[in-house]
């Protein structure tokens, strides 16, 4: 029974991996001079796909935290920033100040920095999670929001470490030995490899003891605690996992941009992450890539359409529609796009709780 149940997810992962590999291969080989962005009518470029992959990693974590454990986080961009800055600081400042000579120039140092960043962010999440997760509902939302804002402001203010609002530049590209994971066509494979690995880990967590404990907490915390679930432990665990995933994504983002500055990590970023998670479906790991992709395509389309129709550029005008989409989805599809899509399958006699 268990084996059967794992099947659709296994098939899903394989299909996703193959499709993404084909997308990537098109840009790498360019048959008949075609590029990936031509296929999608230039709405989705390889650049967009990399961003979708990076944010998928964050949103999988957010889904575990919000959808499964039922704990709201409006400060997830703070953890994302911690990862990006850990990579940025460890790879640029160390060599600039002549510290760690002989180590900071090696090819494996940035990879080690990613892991150090994840561990530090996880530790930070553990320390703040203990007290903060005692709060519930609205209060937890506001406390995490405050936390995210503090991290954001500190990123701008601690300029000796973070380069202030100008940020850090010159973050090296990742490489394995002498094989550089750049240009973007190569980096794409790294990001989506990581994203698929994270999806697999997420699916496994959901179907494990941890996942069952988290769902129990979400359904009824008191009942879960009475049945012997150490609710505090599992809630903190969910926060730590989601923070570490956000940190990983942040590092990948830093090496992708080759620079970090505070602006992509503010309150707006946290809200966008929650939006993506909610649009895809909070209680669904598969909702993560879907939600991120849907919101990316919507905002890309809106941006280009607004440009051609109203001749206005830049700005954040597309956010009008972005906000409306968010409101409409919350009103009419509070469980996300993916659960509406799979509603038919559920009616065929499937246990809704098992559809991950």
């Amino acid at each position, binding site marked *: 029974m268990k084996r059967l149940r794992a099947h659709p997810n296994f098939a899903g992962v394989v299909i996703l991996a193959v499709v993404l590999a084909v997308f990537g291969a098109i840009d790498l080989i360019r048959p008949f001079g075609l590029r990936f962005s031509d296929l999608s009518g230039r709405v989705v470029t390889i650049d967009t796909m990399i961003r979708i992959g990076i944010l998928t990693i964050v949103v999988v974590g957010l889904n575990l935290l919000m959808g499964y454990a039922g704990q709201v986080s409006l400060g997830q961009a703070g953890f994302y920033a911690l990862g990006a800055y850990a990579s940025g600081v460890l790879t640029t400042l160390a060599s600039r100040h002549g510290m760690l000579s002989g180590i900071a120039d090696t090819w494996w140092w940035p990879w080690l920095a990613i892991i150090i960043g994840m561990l530090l962010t996880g530790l930070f999440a553990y320390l703040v999670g203990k007290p903060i997760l005692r709060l519930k509902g609205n209060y937890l939302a506001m406390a995490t929001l*405050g936390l995210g804002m*503090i991290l954001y402001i500190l990123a701008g203010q601690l300029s000796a470490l973070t380069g202030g609002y100008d940020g850090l530049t010159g973050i090296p590209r990742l490489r394995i030995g002498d094989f550089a994971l750049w240009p973007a066509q190569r980096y794409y494979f790294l990001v989506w490899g990581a994203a698929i690995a994270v999806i697999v880990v997420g699916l496994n967590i959901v179907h494990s003891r941890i996942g069952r404990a988290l769902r129990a907490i979400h359904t009824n915390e008191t009942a879960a605690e009475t049945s012997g679930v150490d609710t505090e432990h599992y809630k903190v665990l969910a926060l730590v996992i989601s923070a570490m995933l956000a940190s990983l994504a942040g590092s990948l983002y830093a090496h992708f941009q080759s620079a970090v500055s505070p602006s992509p990590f503010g309150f707006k970023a946290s809200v966008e992450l929650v939006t993506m998670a909610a649009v895809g479906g909070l209680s669904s790991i598969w909702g993560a890539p879907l939600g991120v992709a849907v919101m990316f395509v919507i905002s890309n389309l809106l941006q280009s359409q607004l440009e051609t129709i109203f001749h206005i550029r830049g700005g*954040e005008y597309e956010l009008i529609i972005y906000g409306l989409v968010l*409101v409409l989805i919350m009103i009419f599809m509070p469980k996300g796009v993916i659960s509406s899509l799979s509603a038919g399958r559920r009616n065929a006699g499937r246990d809704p709780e098992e559809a991950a």
Partner: protein
Amino acid sequence: MHRKPQRQPVRILVTVLVVLGVAALSLLLGSQKGLQPQHYIQLTIDGVRAGSIYALMALGFVVVYSVTGIINFAQGEFVMLGAMICLTVNDLDLPLPPAWKMIAAILAGVLLTTIIGATMERLTIRPARRSPPVTLIIITIGVTITLRAAALLVWGADPHVLPAFTTLALEDKIFRFGGVIVQAQSLWIWATLIVTLILLYFFLERTLLGKALRACAVNRRAAQLVGINPDRMSLLSFALAAALGAIGGIVLGPVTRPIYDMGVMLGLRGFVAAIIGGLVSVPGVVVGGLLLGVVENIAAGVTDPAYKSVVSFVILIAILLFRPQGIIGGGEKPAEEA
């Protein structure tokens, strides 16, 4: 809450020690920057001015939260809309003397924002009334994003100017007391806060509608049983919150330069003020707003203005963790059962 009786004095002692410690630290930092006593008075006065706006915003949070249980993220956008609509109407080429035009602009700002608030409730909150708090928070965030982007479209990304009420010009009248400067607009802000509080008191205590609103805040179901329509009260609470926000934005307009994204930080500060006051008590949040304004301004004065908002977020988290029932609201019952 079953608190052991002997813990109460300890708690008070700790609080007093923390407050004294922070005060001593501020004085130390201030003396290093060479601040004189009049500087502190100046910082306090400016803090009270900012705090009055936070108080008006916090009232908006309280009205909506106590009636509907929703934290309304769009509260800050009401402030922005009030200021923006007011200055737009004031810039219109109306055949009126400047003073009357200003009054018309103020009324238009409050009225239109109130309508926007009521519309928001009807279109977005009512259809999702039975959703969990997370969903409702996300909905109000969605409305916030939309309103802000729409404001960007209408008013552009540049800051605007609203003339001071006293002079009806850019330059405001300034009173000097020794080394301390008080702008005339500050007096307008304080007077507005006091008048608003008096009106609110009369509305809530003396009118049938106000009493119905309070009944709904005490117990929604019981209110329904005695014939109060909770849907109407929810609508009323959003309209009232929008009006309070717009009033705050309009009196604040002349001392800042209204810009489309001014609502974000103001909204968050208003929320912190509301939390200090325990989220349900009107006097509590007014004191909370004033306190936040003063503490924040002095903290920024003795350190670096850039850390102003860090101070309010630290206060926010500290209060949520240690006294979720608020400092001044004083009730034993937390606003939201933990």
